């Protein structure tokens, strides 16, 4: 195995990993605020890419304008989803929540198929396609965009959760919803916030990855599941651990595809997912928690 090639796998793995990390944090934010695993998370990723395309091609907006439009519409659909599917649920048992978020995800995917058809589409890269040499490997400018934007979002996230009142209130909800309610935090609003943040983050992930991998109505399933895998590796933390989880997953996948077989690439994420769930359900870095009855 040559060093150059290894470096190449590592670099492309890191940029896919960054995407998984963003999606994973979206999962964690909702999970921490509500205890729900949102099976529709991947659909917001898909909506990000597809809506950008819509604003680019149908509305003829330039890229810099299409992206914020796409993020806003995807976020609005996140709000709608919370309002229509999650909030009015009469018996919010875990199974009902799983079923209703799966139902929602199928619905969003189906409607997108109606709207955009089954073809895969490409979004132009943000700044050219001239490869950049790094050591013996090459990366595309889009890879740098992905890494940069992910870094920025993670930093903003950190700032929000630790230095703003709303962010602190959301963390309080994550620790103990009842106690948070008792000290005057509007828990339902925090739940809505968590859906807003995670659908916005998901759509950004979908937008920045679309120039590399193309986009279609059904890309959300796999991306969503891998994002979840990243979150599980990170122990459902909405910070550094999930980022590391995403990057580890991205690199392992890219190495696996390069060294073993590209056909089994997708299986790697799920094998890791199962192993972590079986052996260390608290995540790779978490401390074991006693089970509450």
């Amino acid at each position, binding site marked *: 195995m040559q060093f150059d090639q290894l470096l190449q796998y590592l670099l492309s793995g890191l940029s896919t990993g960054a995407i998984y990390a963003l999606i994973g944090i979206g999962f964690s934010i909702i*999970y921490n605020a509500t205890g*729900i*695993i949102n*099976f529709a998370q991947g659909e917001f990723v898909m909506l990000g890419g597809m809506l950008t395309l819509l604003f680019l091609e149908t509305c003829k907006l330039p890229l810099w304008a299409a992206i914020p439009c796409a993020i806003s519409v995807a976020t609005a659909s996140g709000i709608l989803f919370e309002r229509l*599917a999650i909030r*009015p*649920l*009469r*018996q919010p048992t*875990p*199974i*009902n*929540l*799983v*079923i*209703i978020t*799966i*139902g*929602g*995800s*199928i*619905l*969003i*995917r*189906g*409607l997108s*198929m*109606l709207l955009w058809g*089954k073809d895969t589409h490409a979004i132009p890269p943000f700044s050219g396609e001239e490869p950049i040499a790094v050591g013996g490997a090459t990366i595309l400018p889009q890879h740098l965009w992905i890494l940069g934007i992910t870094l920025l979002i993670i930093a903003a996230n950190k700032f929000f959760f630790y230095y703003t009142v709303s962010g602190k209130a959301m963390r309080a909800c994550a620790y103990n919803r009842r106690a948070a309610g008792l000290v005057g935090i509007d828990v339902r609003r925090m739940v809505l916030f968590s859906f807003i943040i995670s659908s916005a983050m998901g759509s950004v992930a979908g937008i920045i990855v679309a120039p590399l991998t193309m986009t279609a109505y059904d890309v959300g*399933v796999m991306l969503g*599941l891998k994002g*979840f895998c990243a979150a*599980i590796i990170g122990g459902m933390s909405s910070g550094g651990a999930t980022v590391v989880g995403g990057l580890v997953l991205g690199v392992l996948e890219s190495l696996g595809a390069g060294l073993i*077989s590209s*056909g*089994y690439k*997708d*299986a790697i994420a*799920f*094998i890791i*997912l*199962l192993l972590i*769930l*079986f052996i260390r*359900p608290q995540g790779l870095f978490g401390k074991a928690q006693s089970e509450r*009855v």
Partner: protein
Amino acid sequence: MNRDLIKFLAFATLILATPQVLSGSYLMNVLLFVGIHTMLAIGLNLLLGYAGQISLGHAGFFGLGAYLSGILTATYGWNPWLAMPLAASVVGGLAFLIGFPILKLKGHYLAMATLGMGIIMYIIFNETIGLTGGPSGLSGIPAISIGSLAFDSDQKNFYLIWSFTLGMTLLTLNLTNSRIGRALRAVHDSEVAAQVLGINARLLKVQIFALSAVISSIAGTLYAHTMTFISPTSFGFNFSVELLTMVVIGGLGSIYGSFLGAALLTLLPEFLRGAQDYDIIIYGALLMVMVKYMPGGLVRGVPDLFRKLLKKRGARHA
């Protein structure tokens, strides 16, 4: 039990009489799938409705059963009657082994883990091209036969499939009315309380997981030999969701509900011929509407609705 037996006999007579009415119509072919789907829905319902454990990977067990007996008969020339129990025991054994670590998980985590398991199996069906034919599928699977009687027409297959489905129905009705059924419902309501009462909840969950996998595998075998051709697309995540929809629509914890859900979801696309790709949207909407407005499924929701309506009318008259 007597009333249950009469109910079952009425159900079985109704089912077995349908070919007299529909003989020769293309609906016969659809009814084969209603039978297979009913069997699958009953299997999943045992797990989800009775034991309260979700699985989003049952399409994988269904596929494994189909591929195992497909490969054994088409490639290695086995008799389907030998392949079926072998496939079922392999799938059941596998489910039993996976069951221990996977059923330690609860709720959302269990859903994700079973989903991952299903997708891994789907990837294996696609990638082991030498065995399964990969994405282009496995063809030349022989029809099942008894002596010189080959089940090669829709009419004959109808009786074959439905005798399995009805047998399975009787078996599960019995099971759910037994001590095991009551233990399952106890585990469903509170695992801790069940354990305090001396039920080995962990083992019971794993056993029921394995049983529902065996049922799925047998359904898979029947599917493979009826279709004589299988490909991975029939065993993906979408099909797991379709099964889940059947169980939820029919009613969690109701065997006849599973039949109702399976029949409805299998017949629905036939009436929506023009809108073929869009049935998935309808599944999504149905899932959301059902969970929201009729969490007990059609079997419980519709009678409730009638009762409410009658009450309203009664109140008006009074």
